[in-house]
């Protein structure tokens, strides 16, 4: 029986990151900690979504030379964040400028992308003010 994406990507399907990824987790924790001090971070990616983040988003949004807005930089995200979540989501899926369609993440569902863009851009959870 075929399963739609939302079912296939249920939280039960995630697995721990392999051993090699430990240093990146440390980096990630540092980033998240830093964000906690400088941005209204309220998105809570689960472990599977964190794997998607490490495989995809991290390769550009932590490297200034790519020109991508850097995670944790309020200045980089201010103008983008002002567009609102729906507009950002459309740009993420369709791609814009150097941002590849879907942010390279072919495994991401719409909900995954919403959680990750809130996490990366420091957007509030939907409904938050």
């Amino acid at each position, binding site marked *: *029986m*075929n*399963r*739609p*994406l939302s079912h*296939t*990507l249920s939280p039960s*399907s*995630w*697995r721990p*990151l*392999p*051993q*090699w*990824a430990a*240093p990146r987790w440390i980096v990630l924790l540092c980033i998240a900690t830093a964000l906690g001090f400088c941005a209204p971070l309220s998105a809570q990616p689960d472990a*599977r979504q964190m*794997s*998607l983040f*490490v*495989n*995809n988003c991290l*390769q*550009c949004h932590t*490297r200034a*030379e*790519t*020109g*991508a807005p850097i995670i944790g930089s309020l200045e980089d995200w201010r103008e983008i964040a002002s567009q609102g979540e*729906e507009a950002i*989501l*459309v740009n993420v*899926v*369709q*791609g814009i*400028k*150097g941002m*590849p*369609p*879907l942010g*390279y*993440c*072919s*495994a*991401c*569902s*719409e909900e995954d992308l919403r959680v990750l863009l809130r996490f990366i851009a420091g957007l509030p959870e939907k409904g938050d003010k």
Partner: protein
Amino acid sequence: MDRRKFLQSSLALSVSAAAAGVTGCRQQPLDLEPATAFTPGEPMPWINWAANQSCTPQWRSAPASVDELMDALQTATGCVRAVGAGHSFSPVVPTDDTLISMDLLSGLLRHDSEKQQATLLAGTRMHAMGPMLHSIGQALPNMPDMDYPSLGGAITNSVHATGTAFGSMSSYVTELKLATLSGDLIECSAEKNPEIFKAAQTSIGSLGIVSEITLQNQAAFNLTEYSSVENLNEVLENIEERCNDHRHFEIFPIPYSDTCLTIATDIAKPGDKPLGEDDPQAVNTVRRVFDATSWIPVVGEGLYDRILTTALAAEVETIRTGPSYQVFPHVRVVRFREMEYTVPAEAGPACVREILKTIKDKHLPLCFPLEYRYVKGDDVWLSMFEGQAGCSISIHQFGDLDYKTPFAEIEPIFWKYGGRPHWGKIHTLDASRLAKLYPRHWQDFHEVRRELDPQGKFMNRHLHTIFGS
């Protein structure tokens, strides 16, 4: 002053002096709609990096283990395709039925320090592989100049880098596991299921889904890369010597110019230091110079060449040095579309000269630098390098400009030189013509394919075109 600022200031001075206030007739960017428009709440499309391929599959799966991959294949309906990073320009991925994302099948499974081999899950991105292998004291002997693709995608499409002593990524595979629709997980290597192995090393995803790949690596090493601006004809006249002098050597010829960028990469020496910066936006600067000058009657092309030559020649060479996995790849953020063919190595100089002459003679709107690389021959049945060393020549067009018309003018030149198209890049060949380019093993490959996928469930429209029924 860095290269970008120098080019921009040179451009401003030259153009204002030559043609202030005159309206140009250069090719205008296309008013492109997105490959597939997305509305939140509606089914989400899949779109490739270049945004020239898309689909909206009815079912999508993202297995996080090999067992889940096997389950997904058992329940798959209709045409089944796998996707990694989505960096192919050709329509190898689109399916309206079942799309299996390999994103979560990522990581290092095991390694053998004595043999310098490592086994990785096929969804592992190349940008993650470098640190993974470095942590166990290993490194890929060679790597493409960008590290966005997944390992599985790189293998199935015979992705390659440059270096006359180095084969494609597929040629470094010593073992792999192939998940099939019949529920088997086939282990294959040169000793075990050798025919399936030779077919699966480059299969364009037509046999099943590769789940694990063992690579022949080498001890971790450091590299130093030198980028220089040179005269193309002088480089081509001594191309064999230039390639022999360096571990890796490649050229970026610039259309409408005698100038080219050369990149020579060698094992780092003690004391090597970086110099200058890699500029991911450099091609946009070239485009602005081209747009600002090429339309000017009579003198435009000469002016363009002079500005580029003057500006680039004044720039000191760029040096990058460090661990190999950091030096091989470059940042690629400017969207483009690409056609690439591999011609026999000895035909490379004549082929690229004819392409550049054709662009100039026909005034084709192509200013994006070409890429010119050499790759060692191999014995992978459908590798572009099967049975012969190859010279791979890539043509690019900016992502917001028409690529079909200029590519159609260039593609017959590749045919004239016996070129084989890159499976993951744009080309127009069908099965009848491709079969002639692979006379030794075309039938062998399809016998294996029909045995493993008798119903052709891994065949999308594009694969039906390139492989036939």
